[in-house]
């Protein structure tokens, strides 16, 4: 019996590893759903914030739910900029705020971006926030930094301060968060291409390009 015992132990451990790995995979795999028709991207209205970068009539819509304090979102922002140049007028990017509670300054950053948006400079603030993410994320005076960024991109800083504390910016962020929650989004960045979720494991340049190419070729990407 002792002769076979190591074989038995090894097989049991192999099975236990596969079994527990499979269970963990099932438990952790996010269940993303396509965006239903009634929540499909529509014209901007009311408190809904919809920030579009690129050709507004592009055939491919890349919708991002992002958190300004999330490093992978920062990496994605840099990639998205490159992507828009690469696909020229065929792709547009829509950003939705989804500040995670785990990130201390994420909501404030979203409010800063929305306040900048009220002066027509959302994307400039978006770029600065992601570019300077490592600085303000750890800074004690985040608010002052956001105000200095507002000045740098040419905003009326007094108005920016008022807008950051105003109800409209809050309502816009809350509207995005409500949309994310209705789609059962838990992590950032979460991406949709023409309403279809991008598989989390494909949230890399190759995966996103492949998904966009599939849509442009008329094939379903997911």
């Amino acid at each position, binding site marked *: 019996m*002792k002769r076979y*015992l*190591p074989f038995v*132990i*090894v097989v049991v*451990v*192999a099975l236990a*590893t596969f079994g*527990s*790995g499979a269970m*963990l*995979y099932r438990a*952790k*795999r*996010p269940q993303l759903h396509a965006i239903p028709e009634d929540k499909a991207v529509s014209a901007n209205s009311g408190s809904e914030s919809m920030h579009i970068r690129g050709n507004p009539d592009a055939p491919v819509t890349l919708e991002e739910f992002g*958190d300004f*304090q*999330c*490093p*992978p*979102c920062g*990496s994605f922002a840099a990639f998205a900029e490159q992507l828009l140049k690469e696909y020229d007028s065929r792709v547009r990017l829509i950003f939705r705020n989804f500040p*995670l509670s*785990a*990130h201390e300054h994420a909501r404030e950053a979203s409010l800063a971006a929305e306040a900048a948006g009220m002066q027509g400079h959302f994307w400039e603030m978006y770029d600065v926030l992601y570019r300077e993410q490592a600085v303000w994320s750890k800074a004690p005076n985040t608010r002052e930094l956001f105000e200095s960024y507002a000045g740098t991109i040419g905003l009326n800083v007094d108005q920016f301060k008022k807008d950051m504390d105003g109800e409209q910016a809050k309502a816009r962020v809350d509207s995005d968060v409500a949309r994310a929650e209705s789609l059962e989004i*838990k*992590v*950032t*960045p*979460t991406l949709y291409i023409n309403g279809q979720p991008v*598989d*989390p*494991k*494909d*949230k*890399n340049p190759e995966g996103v390009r492949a998904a966009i190419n599939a849509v442009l070729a008329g094939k379903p990407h997911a």
Partner: protein
Amino acid sequence: MTVSRFRTALYAIVAIVALAGLADATYLTVQALTGETLSCGGSPDCFRVLGSSYGKVGGIPVAMFGALAYFTLFSFATFAAFGYSWAPKFVALLAAAMFLATLWFLYVQAFLLHAYCRYCLFSAALTFLIAGLLIAVPPSGRRSST
């Protein structure tokens, strides 16, 4: 305790430590496969390391290679503990390869990514522990007075 028993005990400990490494690497593999290493909001914040270009080889998460290595090491150490004479040299070879790989990954985290993943550091600690245990394994055929 005889040298033989001491060796058996050490290989058994190596097998148990390898099991801990297997659990760690399996968890990281699942994280990589679910895309959690490319996101915020999951756990833990290891994306800087696991989501980097060094986190995959040929499109396969390095954690999966780690899980395979720990499982193989566990298997060899188990056979060595049960007295299979061919097993110790495979344990030593594999542990040496894992030790070198660990040094590389520590270098990548410290000097290339400037970020650390606590699960990767845990794995590194286990590999160092295994290397230390194997250095303590006395050569066969000698007796110990302990």
